[in-house]
């Protein structure tokens, strides 16, 4: 015996509608592979290239609380905006973000990162300078590497001082694909 898809869907929808979910998530298809997208009532909280939920549930629970539930409805808006972005029809994301539990330095770096525009690139050093700490390029690199909301917070637009791509938590091929999509390469 198994739970019918209809019953399963209607429970998950009701849970979100009644605001009982701390963190809703779903796995989306994209041109650069499957993405696990998670949103809390406060906003978009995570995008992960490792799309197997089994590996991510505990991490999502640590951010928002134990009521983590797969529910397509909870990521409707990010899904639509990401689809538009990958179709080349969106250059700016209009999403509230849930950055809770991140240290202040990380938050200020991410705020600067959010200002790097579509199709442009910046460097780790320039971001460090922008948060008033020019020597912190390496720390900025760490923040990029741990960026909880890649794509929307565009760490793919951050490159080395010599123009090297340097690295990308989701794999360098994805960084290249995103920059090409934006016409930055």
């Amino acid at each position, binding site marked *: *015996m198994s*739970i019918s898809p209809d*019953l*399963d869907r209607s429970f998950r929808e009701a849970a979100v509608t009644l605001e009982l979910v701390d963190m809703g998530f779903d796995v989306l298809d994209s041109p650069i592979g499957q993405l696990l997208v998670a949103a809390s009532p406060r906003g978009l909280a995570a995008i992960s290239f490792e799309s197997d939920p089994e590996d991510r549930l505990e991490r999502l629970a640590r951010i928002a609380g134990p009521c983590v*539930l797969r529910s397509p409805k909870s990521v409707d808006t990010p899904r639509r905006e990401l689809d538009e972005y990958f179709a080349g029809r969106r250059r700016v994301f209009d999403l509230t973000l849930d950055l809770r539990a991140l240290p202040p330095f990380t938050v200020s770096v991410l705020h600067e990162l959010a200002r790097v525009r579509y199709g442009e690139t910046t460097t780790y050093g320039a971001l460090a300078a922008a948060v008033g700490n020019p020597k912190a390029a390496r720390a900025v690199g760490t923040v990029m590497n741990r960026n909880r909301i890649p794509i929307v917070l565009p760490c793919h637009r951050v490159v080395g001082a010599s123009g090297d791509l340097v690295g990308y938590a989701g794999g360098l091929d994805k960084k290249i694909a995103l920059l090409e999509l934006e016409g930055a390469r």
Partner: protein
Amino acid sequence: MMHAVAIPPFERFYEQHSVEVLRLLRRRLGTDLADDAFQETFLRALKAYRRLDHGDHLRAWVLTIAQNVALDALRRARPVAELVDAATEDSRPAYEDLAELTDGLPRTERAAVVLRYGYDLSYDQIASALGSTPDAARQAASTGVRRIRRSVSS
């Protein structure tokens, strides 16, 4: 010292217990009524989930919620006289250890006693399973225990 089991993310809890809950509800209510009761059971569980203080005995906990949802549904659908049987009939999966002693107790007392002394749940957790308050759960457990004492000594 024993360590309490961590509370799993709800998704995992749901995946683990949903089939057994649906099976129980179908047995009790039939296929037609079971779907609504299934949804109600997991919504009640989700509502109470944040208040849990450990992840022990979640199966017993959710099956108790399902039993209560089923009884509510039966109460709406059937005359009261038939309920007595339904209440004592198949609480077995969650209640094995204390089944014999608690067999004669009214439903709420029985559930409170078993969850408290069989599964060591807190009164908060018992209250959320029974849809009542911690005070009422404590009261039900102590009344149940007194009743058992009386029946054992008589």
